[in-house]
């Protein structure tokens, strides 16, 4: 490998490092060589990072697509496995609209999925691998973790309507406290409940600082379970030496049509947007008619060229 060091770019090095890391944990390589029908992506449009997909007609007239995403394919092509787990890793090009140019670009993506009877052990392992992935890219990194049941339960407990929730979630993602307050006012919430909703923005940071504060979110059984799970999972990561690089943050908002439970996003200093993103997606599995549960994440390597050191 040494003789290649001088010629490999940062993202190429990352691809090999991450592949080796995931193999070490028993994640088998998934190669996607055929094209999926456009329909697969059209049905799950909101799951995709950008909804535009390059399509073309196959020799038999079927409408196919260049993959905008790998997860959907992995689910579709894997057996439903309510017992045991399948551990898969991939490293593929995906085709999406690039932000600035508004035209299609090829992006290199590395990621892993764990599908089947996913329990605490598997979730812990995936979180650990996310932390290790970030570490292999840069020492200066932060893994943001949220449990989606916590904000959801808190808002339900406060009596926020479905439309109000949607607004609050979009303000929560922006950490916009004024916005959340104004929705609470419109919904006619009592002062203490509105304060509780706003504290979803205020409470964030290392597990050490945040976990003791979370008791106020134990508004029902579901929320209580979520708090317990979040504290046990972050404790495992802390024991593995990642305590200082974890940030519990409920402003990490994702589409709950697909995701549930734990959600994660990884940041590296010097790159302006998240480079790792993932979480549990039992709801997507359900939507695709699967009984098994799933968790996974992807690392967006195209961002690495922005690192200047």
């Amino acid at each position, binding site marked *: 490998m040494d003789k290649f060091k001088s010629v490999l770019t940062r993202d190429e090095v990352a691809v090999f490092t991450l592949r080796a890391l995931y193999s070490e944990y028993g994640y088998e390589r998934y190669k996607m060589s055929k094209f999926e029908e456009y329909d697969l992506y059209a049905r799950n449009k909101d799951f995709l990072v950008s909804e535009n997909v390059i399509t073309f007609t196959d020799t038999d007239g079927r409408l196919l697509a260049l993959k905008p995403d790998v997860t959907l394919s992995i689910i579709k092509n894997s057996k439903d496995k309510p017992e045991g787990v399948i551990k898969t890793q991939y490293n593929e090009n995906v085709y999406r609209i690039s932000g600035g140019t508004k035209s299609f670009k090829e992006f290199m993506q590395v990621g892993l999925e764990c599908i089947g009877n996913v329990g605490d052990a598997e979730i812990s392992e995936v979180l650990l691998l996310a932390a290790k992935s970030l570490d292999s890219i840069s020492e200066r990194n932060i893994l943001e973790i949220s449990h989606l049941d916590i904000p959801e339960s808190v808002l339900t407990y406060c009596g926020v309507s479905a439309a109000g929730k949607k607004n609050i979630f979009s303000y929560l993602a922006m950490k*916009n406290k004024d916005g959340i307050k104004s929705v609470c006012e419109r919904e006619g919430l009592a002062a203490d409940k509105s304060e509780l909703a706003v504290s979803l923005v205020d409470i964030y940071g290392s597990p050490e600082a945040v976990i003791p504060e979370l008791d106020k979110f134990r508004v029902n059984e579901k929320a209580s379970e979520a708090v317990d799970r979040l504290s046990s999972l972050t404790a495992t990561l802390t024991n593995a030496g990642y305590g200082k690089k974890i*940030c519990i943050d409920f402003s990490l908002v994702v589409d709950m049509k697909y995701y549930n439970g734990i959600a994660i996003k990884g*940041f590296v200093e010097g*790159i*302006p*947007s*998240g480079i790792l993103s993932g979480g549990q997606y039992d709801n997507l599995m359900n939507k695709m008619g699967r009984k098994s549960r799933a968790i996974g994440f992807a690392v967006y390597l195209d961002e690495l060229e922005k690192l200047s050191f």
Partner: protein
Amino acid sequence: MKRFINIALPKGRLGEKVYGMFEAAGFECRDIKENSRKLIFENSELGIRYFWVKPSDVAIYVERGAADIGVAGKDILLEYSPDVYEFLDLNVGRCHMAVAAKRGFVDDKSKTLRVATKFTNIAKKYYSSLGRDIDIIHLNGSIELAPILNLSDVIVDIVETGATLRENNLEVVEKFEPISARLIANKSSFKFLSDKIEEIRTGISKQIAKD
């Protein structure tokens, strides 16, 4: 090496007012008040660095991480939906996003409504919420001219006092979104500089004038 906090401020009167809030909160930078051609101003003691940019560009600087924090109008945030944190409503630069038309204009719902605006996305979203079929005419300035020359039926634009509209025989049909300056931050920067950025946010929040 100490990491500076980069702050993008909107050029112009609003920016000067906003800088005043930063200064009052204890984040002063003396050079900034001198009339010079310099683009970047530093206070190395406090570890902060200011720069003036075109108001509509602040969100881009912040979203792309060239600035860690900045001050941008809510109009720009609504139009471009940048992926940034929106920490505070600074309660300055207050105005409204509004629909305006020639005095006495009546909307004929059987026709496509022609809308001239700088804010294409805001206009589209507003009219789609009303279920009204529209045609968008994107202009970069002098929007008020459009209805006068019959280029459009209405305009969607920022209205502060309404004086320009009145002088041109136009009137506000509806104000639909309050606008003001917001303190925004890059999501990634905030993860690594949260203490310092929180300190600035707290300082600035004390400078916000109450209605």
